[in-house]
């Protein structure tokens, strides 16, 4: 209890609150700006947190993550162009609302829904992760390996347009994660005699290259071909059409609850992430409505469904990260990088050895949610004015920040790596290989490898070892069933494309 209070008091210091608030603003701005998403802000920010104390650093990253789920709706509603991928489904009803002069009301709806979804996601995290961590203590090498296996299957099947290409990308990510030193014999492998490669490819270099710069190359080329920024701004509309009152809140309340539930579930499963949650909960809201035909024509519940679901994911994606050490989605994976920089390995031992830090993080999440609630009142209107910022200003700034960040956090060699991975990221985008599965493969690769090797040594060629481990067995069976079910769904065309 003492540690809990200490942790919370760590979080509620002025420095921390300022950093979390700054994070939220940065996240909102990146999400609102066309062409870049909050993920890009996260990849760039991770190296810069190097000099902060752990709790401030993680709080800052959490702030970006949370802010990022709010800003994306502005461009989606007013310009029919999602500011970040998870707001794609917001365009379905948000833009029609804006066209009939209810742009501001749609923004208010998205604000209320986002903050509610966020609070629900956090609450579930606080309640679930502590007991789950105690269960996770029982997880040995084989159990951990089988959970990662399930993550790979879910990921390969749900992300991207082709299961095969998704799995190829994941395998390629795993392959690159093996550069460095063999965990068993301490021998060098795949380092081509380059000393900088002996401790492996740095996660920041790979992340910034693939996620941030790869996307920027693509945007720049698209922009040259004048394919973006053609949508017209529908405007906020007149005040009398835009009142958002208690009756509206009651109208969307059930939708928010259902969608947050979906968001929490999807966030807690390692893999799919907020974009999938948004689409799934949009579909669910439409199915359960009495008048489903209104959806897509400017139904306020459509906006509420997507925005509450994609935000609820944020808190929930920390459940597997903190209790098992497996990130729930890409954003959580990048925040994992922030933990590692500060010498903290997420996993069950965090709850026994770093109770204070855990509650500090929880405190930072609460601050982040409050900031979203408060700032949203002003920033959404502000972003509505500035989202037409031209890409030729946005993109060079991001490139500069990316390269500076990587040189600060590691060395010049990593700057070359970033450029190499940017080219790879661009190629993956053009050839339609999922970079999401690639990055998750890269991050989970070492964990998967070591746990598999430990399991093989422990089993000693004896299949009985597997049969003695019900948890692992259940997860392996789950992976097999999922492969079969998801592949079948795919054939019927009901898979979720992200």
């Amino acid at each position: 209890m003492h540690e809990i209070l200490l942790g919370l008091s760590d979080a509620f210091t002025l420095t921390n609150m300022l950093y979390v608030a700054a994070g939220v603003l940065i996240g909102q701005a990146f999400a609102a700006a066309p062409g870049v998403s909050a993920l890009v802000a996260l990849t760039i920010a991770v190296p810069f947190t190097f000099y902060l104390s752990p709790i401030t650093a993680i709080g800052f990253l959490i702030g970006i993550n949370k802010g990022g789920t709010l800003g994306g709706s502005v461009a989606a509603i007013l310009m029919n162009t999602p500011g970040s991928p998870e707001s794609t489904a917001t365009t379905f009803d948000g833009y029609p609302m804006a066209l009939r002069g209810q742009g501001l009301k749609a923004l208010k709806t998205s604000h209320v829904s986002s903050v509610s979804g966020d609070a629900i996601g956090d609450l579930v995290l606080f309640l679930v992760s502590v007991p789950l961590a105690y269960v996770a203590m029982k997880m040995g090498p084989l159990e951990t390996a089988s959970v990662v296996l399930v993550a790979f299957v879910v990921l390969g099947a749900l992300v991207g347009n082709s299961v095969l290409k998704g799995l190829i990308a994941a395998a390629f990510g795993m392959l690159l994660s093996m550069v460095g030193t063999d965990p068993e014999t301490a021998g060098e492998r795949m380092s081509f005699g380059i000393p900088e490669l002996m401790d492996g490819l740095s996660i920041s270099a790979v992340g910034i290259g693939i996620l941030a710069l790869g996307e920027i190359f693509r945007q720049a080329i698209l922009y040259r071909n004048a394919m973006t920024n053609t949508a017209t701004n529908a405007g906020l509309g007149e005040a009398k059409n835009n009142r958002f009152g208690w009756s509206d809140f009651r109208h969307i309340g059930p939708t928010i609850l259902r969608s947050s539930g979906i968001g929490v579930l999807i966030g807690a499963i390692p893999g799919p992430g907020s974009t999938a949650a948004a689409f799934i909960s949009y579909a669910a809201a439409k199915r359960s409505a009495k008048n489903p035909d209104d959806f897509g024509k400017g139904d306020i519940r459509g906006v509420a469904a997507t925005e509450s679901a994609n935000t609820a994911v944020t808190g929930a994606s920390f459940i597997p990260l903190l209790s098992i050490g497996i990130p729930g989605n890409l954003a959580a994976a990048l925040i994992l990088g922030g933990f590692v920089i500060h010498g903290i390995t997420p996993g069950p031992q965090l709850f026994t050895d770093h109770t204070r830090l855990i509650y500090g993080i929880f405190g930072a999440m609460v601050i982040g949610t409050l900031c979203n609630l408060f700032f949203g009142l002003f920033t959404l209107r502000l972003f509505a004015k500035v989202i037409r910022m031209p890409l030729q200003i946005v993109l060079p700034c991001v490139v500069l920040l990316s390269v500076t960040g990587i040189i600060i956090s590691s060395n010049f060699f990593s700057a070359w790596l970033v450029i190499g991975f940017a080219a790879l990221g661009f190629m993956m985008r053009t050839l339609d290989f999922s970079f999401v599965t690639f990055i998750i493969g890269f991050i989970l690769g070492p964990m998967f490898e070591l746990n598999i090797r430990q399991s093989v040594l422990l089993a000693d060629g004896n299949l009985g070892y597997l049969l003695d481990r019900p948890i692992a067995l259940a997860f392996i069976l789950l992976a097999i069933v999922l492969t079969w079910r998801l592949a079948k769904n795919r054939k019927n065309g009901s898979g979720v494309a992200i």
Partner: protein
Amino acid sequence: MPPALARRGNARPLQLLLALLLAALITTPAQADSDWPTKPINLLVGFSPGGGADTLARLVARELQNELEQPVVVRNIAGGGGIVMATSLKFAPADGYTIGLAANAAFDGMPWLTDLRYTPDDFSYLTTVSELQNALVASGNAPFSTWEEMIAYGREHGLTYGSISPITRLFINMVAEKEGIRIRIIPMRGGLETMNNLIGGHIDIAWSAGVHQSFLGNGKIKVIASLNKTRLRTSPKQPSITELGYPVDYTSYFMLAAPKGIPPKILERLSTALYRASKAENVAMLAEKRMGFPNIVLTAEELEEFIQNGSEAYRQAADELY
């Protein structure tokens, strides 16, 4: 002022300025020795984050920062019990801005046991921070509590052993051969992961360099034997490996090294600052009270000698082995 120079200065101020700048550039390297340090120091830590060595390194970094009035940036380069870090360290410029922390085995033992790109002579040895508390440990629930019981259990069931480096492999292979037990070696990435695996009942025994001590209080981990020359302070009832009739011991230190070839003046300042940082009250407190590591700080000369002796012993052991 000679008239010629004054005249030239009046005529072409820009050229004079350039000449002054050039002169400043030329003299800068000569001043570097006395100015050091003018930028942040990198402290490479040869262990994964979160364990004992990492915590200690971060504390030393903070004290060193006070001593030198420059930020000290800690980077974890885990793998192979410190050899990945040592290899990076060898290739770092010998300018006093990059130092590394690992257990001495990474420097005096590992080069003889695996094929590495450095030898013990590639480094200058600066100071120690604390003595490791090497122990053979088991889960609190293990069906054995003493060395004899463990051997008896092992003869019947075999044992699984968590290993964090080739030296810990070397040790357990020697035990397995001498006692005639089949021991399977499971690679582990760090101390904390090893403890989790012991407590979770996934492996039987493991080498711990001291991280086990925080689990002794609640009985989750028990010590079977000390692997240092003497018994461990926190487990005075358990015999040391020498008492058990083995001709070896693994007394070792967390220590700091730098690439060889640092200008003597800088080396002197660096090792003095590190000696003071390692003896600082905060470091000693954390080491002794919270981690249970005796804060034994050797001077650069003492450490050089310790490394030379260790290196010779490991070289001979390796000769016998191969």
